[in-house]
């Protein structure tokens, strides 16, 4: 197999960096909510930022710099400088800021950006936030409270057109399906799995991930597959998931294995570890963030880049996936949960599919993955996803998650970001409470 990634080793941060506060909105379909269908990007971002600041025990005066992330400010909000459009909404007028966009990896890169700013020594306290209104987009030349639903036409003609390179027969003719199915196809072939076994593992992944989102207060989807089964006269959720009500959309993935687009915002406060205890007695230290980018045209790019980013953090920290107590994976294709868990050593190689079927990757399993339900159930507010996952990890580490709290202490966690045609990150966090 060709080696597509020539990665240099990751260096230690110049100074320790910790997460001291987190905030998020629920994942929603804004246009379908009579109370919130007119809420704007500035307001959403502002509420997430304010919650993060309150959670950290500080005010906007204490924050030196803020970072704004959004997957598609052009096609969603029709703005080119989104950090300025939210600037006045959470008390930071005049402070320095920057916008970045890596599509679905935006919220994961958001953490890396903030950590880099603090580790450089230039700033002590940085707010990093991300918002996406992928479902409820702006109307041209109208105030931002006048939203409209983003249909498939917008996705294909605007979102995809902006994200993917149009040169060299890229997205339109191959990359989309290759991104979805190429890694799981190789996994099935290498492990001798039949099509039925692959279908089983993906149906069980859907079933248990939905149990996670049903238990999560901020998740988009709250109806269990058992409940959906009963509505159509079936015995249980697995039967429903294997039925015509859950058709295949690719060779391997069914509808339940695909992301659910929605709207939401999330934010975090990152500061120098040596001053973190001024604000909180439960900081979460960022040990390392690996990062690899591969063009959307490269087959199995998610696998290659995940291994590259994971190798960076493993070599720097000496920690492996087996040392992690929780794994979060950006899974707009649900196969990513299983495949990343194996690629990072979180579960034994060749055994992950059994873990999935046995429910061991659920919040009440011994190797929990995506305990908020992941993108297919918690929801995919595109660029916000990474910071929503970070919010969830911090709550799990504090033991504050509630009904979907994992059953063991979370000392170390790994967050694997993916998206942007295509960035892949791998962050290792340590609970220093």
């Amino acid at each position, binding site marked *: 197999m*060709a080696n*597509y990634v*020539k990665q240099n080793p990751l260096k230690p941060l110049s100074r320790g960096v910790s997460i001291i506060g987190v905030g998020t909105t629920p994942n929603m379909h804004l246009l379908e909510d009579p109370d919130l269908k007119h809420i704007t990007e500035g307001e959403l971002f502002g509420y997430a930022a304010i919650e993060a600041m309150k959670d950290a025990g500080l005010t906007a005066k204490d924050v030196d710099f803020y970072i704004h992330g959004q997957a598609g400010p052009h096609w969603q909000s029709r703005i080119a400088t989104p950090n300025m459009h939210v600037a006045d909404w959470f008390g930071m007028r005049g402070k320095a800021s920057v916008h970045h966009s890596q599509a679905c990896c935006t919220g994961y890169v958001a953490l890396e950006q903030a950590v880099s700013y603090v580790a450089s020594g230039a700033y002590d306290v940085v707010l990093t936030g991300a918002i996406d209104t992928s479902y409820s987009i702006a109307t041209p030349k109208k105030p931002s409270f006048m939203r409209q639903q983003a249909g498939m036409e917008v996705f294909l003609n605007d979102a995809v057109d902006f994200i993917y390179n149009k*040169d*060299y*027969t*890229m997205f*339109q*003719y*191959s*990359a*989309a*399906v*290759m991104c*979805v*199915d*190429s890694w799981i*196809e*190789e996994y099935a*072939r290498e492990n001798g799995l039949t099509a039925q076994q692959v279908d089983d593992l993906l149906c069980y992944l859907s079933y248990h991930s939905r149990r996670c989102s049903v238990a999560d207060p901020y998740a988009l989807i709250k109806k269990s597959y058992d409940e959906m089964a009963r509505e159509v006269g079936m015995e249980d959720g697995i039967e429903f998931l294997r039925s015509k009500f859950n058709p*295949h*959309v*690719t*060779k391997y993935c069914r509808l339940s294995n695909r992301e659910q687009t929605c709207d939401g915002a999330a934010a975090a406060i990152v500061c120098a570890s040596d001053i973190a205890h001024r604000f909180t007695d439960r900081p979460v230290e960022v040990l390392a963030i690996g990062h690899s980018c591969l063009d*959307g*045209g*490269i*087959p*199995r790019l998610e696998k290659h880049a995940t291994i590259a980013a994971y190798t960076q953090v493993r070599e720097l920290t000496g920690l492996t996936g087996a040392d992690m107590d929780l794994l979060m994976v950006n899974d707009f294709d649900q196969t990513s949960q299983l495949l990343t868990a194996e690629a990072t050593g979180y579960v034994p190689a060749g055994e992950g599919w059994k873990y999935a079927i046995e429910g061991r990757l659920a919040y009440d399993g011994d190797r929990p993955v995506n305990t908020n339900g992941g993108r297919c159930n918690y929801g995919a507010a595109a660029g916000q996803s990474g910071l929503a996952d970070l919010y969830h990890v911090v709550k799990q580490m504090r033991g504050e998650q509630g009904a979907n709290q994992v059953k063991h202490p979370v000392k170390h966690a790994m967050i694997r970001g993916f998206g942007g045609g295509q960035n892949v990150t791998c962050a290792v966090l340590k609970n220093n409470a």
Partner: protein
Amino acid sequence: MKKEELKCIVKPYYDGLAEGKVLGRKCAECGHVEFPPHIACNNCGHLETEWVDLTNVKAVATQIIPGCAAFIWPSAAEMLGDFVYIAVQIEGCDEWSSALVGVTNDQVDELAKRLPLPVKPYFAQDDGFTNLFWQLAE
């Protein structure tokens, strides 16, 4: 860099397709071939590559995936008829995602048993330019 040192890469690639040629860029240092073509070498990092004609160089499909209606670009079906997705690898180059024309989903499982599959270029007229896909060589 001076203006006279700036050379287009993408346009000559598409000009080549219009003439029935598949072009790549060969690294002057390690011999790796960039397909599709880029300015520098992604194998060794060397900053200079040169045009090379790949039209008749051996190419294989290393992975094959069925098509699916949800992801098929309308113009693709119209232009290509039956096709499935492949990872294609030209000798000396890295793999690249593309489409294998003239194959149906029903044939994929059988063809997968015969990987790597020899393939050859298939040129198709796209909307205002010639595009490159692949067809079975045998």
